[in-house]
């Protein structure tokens, strides 16, 4: 059984359909990429899975359990999310210790001190970071804290929403390496949302390419080199990812 399975997921924001019959399956210990332009619905898929979207229908199963309208505490021990912007996702007036100990308290796991220290060590930060505030940290260090906060509950499924798009490329490399290393050590399953095909090709075995609320196609990232076999939408996205080419721009079309 897959770690995450989504079938016929439909989401509407008031009257606007945002997701249309989205389906995907993510095997255990795999990395699955979701790629698309803004408004394609890629982040909405993650937000719906983790309970941040109310009005949806279809089926979502995580670790063989079908999700209902409400998520219980047990769900959040299996599934955690890391958000895009480490400048916005950490409470500015809480110390790193408080940020990391809050999930431990909510889930009544006990042993806070030891868990916080272990979580920091896991993401390569030393214990002195506990008493700092987010503004005293660099962007890369903040994203490490955000990852530590997700991992402190020992989840199996981690949803990563543009985890490095706010960071410089050299810091991005460090965070991507950290995520891959953690996945191997802890046996995690990742769903990675990104607008950057190269990141997804690097991190994931499989990628679903989305446009206007639909999954256009799901392909093995190894097959991205063989552009002939791709749908026109994916091919255009791939061409655009390779840099500026004046002649190629004239061949761009709008996809409905």
């Amino acid at each position: 059984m897959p770690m995450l399975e989504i079938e016929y997921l439909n989401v509407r924001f008031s009257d606007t359909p945002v997701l249309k019959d989205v389906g995907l399956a993510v095997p255990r210990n795999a990395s699955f990429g979701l790629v698309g332009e803004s408004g394609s619905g890629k982040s909405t898929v993650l937000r719906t899975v983790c309970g941040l979207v109310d009005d949806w229908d279809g089926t979502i199963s995580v670790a063989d359990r079908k999700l209902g309208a409400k998520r219980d505490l047990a769900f959040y021990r299996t599934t955690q999310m890391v958000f895009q912007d480490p400048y916005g996702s950490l409470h500015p007036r809480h110390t790193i210790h408080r940020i990391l100990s809050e999930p431990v308290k909510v889930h009544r796991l006990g042993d806070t001190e030891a868990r916080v220290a272990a979580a920091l060590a896991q993401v390569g930060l030393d214990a002195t970071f506990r008493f700092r505030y987010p503004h005293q940290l660099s962007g890369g260090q903040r994203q490490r804290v955000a990852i530590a906060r997700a991992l402190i509950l020992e989840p199996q499924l981690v949803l990563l929403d543009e985890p490095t798009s706010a960071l410089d490329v050299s810091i991005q490399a460090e965070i991507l390496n950290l995520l891959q290393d953690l996945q191997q050590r802890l046996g995690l399953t990742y769903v990675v949302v990104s607008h950057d095909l190269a990141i997804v090709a690097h991190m994931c075995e499989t990628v679903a390419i989305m446009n206007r609320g639909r999954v256009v196609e799901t392909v093995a990232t190894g097959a991205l080199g063989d552009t002939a076999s791709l749908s026109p939408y994916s091919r255009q996205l791939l061409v655009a990812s390779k840099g500026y080419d004046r002649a190629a721009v004239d061949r761009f079309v709008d996809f409905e």
Partner: protein
Amino acid sequence: METTGAMAETPLLDIENLRVTFRTSHGTVEAVRGIGFTLGRERLGIVGESGSGKSQTGRAILGLTAGNGEIRADRLRFHGQDLMGFGQREWRAIRGKRISMVMQDPIYSLNPVMTVGRQIVEAYTTHHRVSPREAKEKTLEMLAAVKIRDPESVFGRYPHEVSGGMGQRIMIAMMLIPDPDLIIADEPTSALDVTVQLQVLAILDDLVRERGMGLIFISHDLSLVSSFCDRILVMYKGRIMEELKASELHRAKHPYTRGLLDCLPSLDGPKAPLRVLRRDPAWEIG
């Protein structure tokens, strides 16, 4: 070839030993530390990570350095004119008219309570004495030049009523309408989707070529800059590490440039860990 031709005449910009220093409560911070370059009617890319001083370099050329900052330079010349001694009045004659700047985010840089058309008309009439009708006609022409399909309707819209890509085209229209000699584009497309980004760049590219302007393209995106510009300056902590022909980026010699190239994930790359940039303290010392 174009580059060498342009360099033969007086350069558009001639900068020597430019320094930008800020006074802060934690002491002085040197954002730009003694850089120099010349620019002809070409497309020059300035690439660097955050804190490299690339944006401060662009702002210094337009006299837009914040109040607590100080600019020093052995030479800062535009068309042979010394920009160093400029007062507010002299700047106003240059800004917009001779040198203009396209900023990163159209949502924040357009006036939210003024229609798009009025803003562009204002940019034009500030520098040209024309009748209102003529200004409007010129504006509609300019909107068409940036490939906006229905200029009449867009003319009357407010910035929140247009998409990001269209907003950035409006910015470009506004910056190009006074017909400047030099455009400074600071991350002009970083907020846009890849395909829209390239479409906007193509419009900028065509207009800059047609009108024979110089362009400084400031970006963190090394591969985008190398595919778009003629020449690249790679900056790190306020200094220029390396100057390269864009087509020869793959032959970069400086370890910082090499390090930046190596840490990018690639579409067909191995899944092995990415190489991490090792920063050499020697890069920071002149």
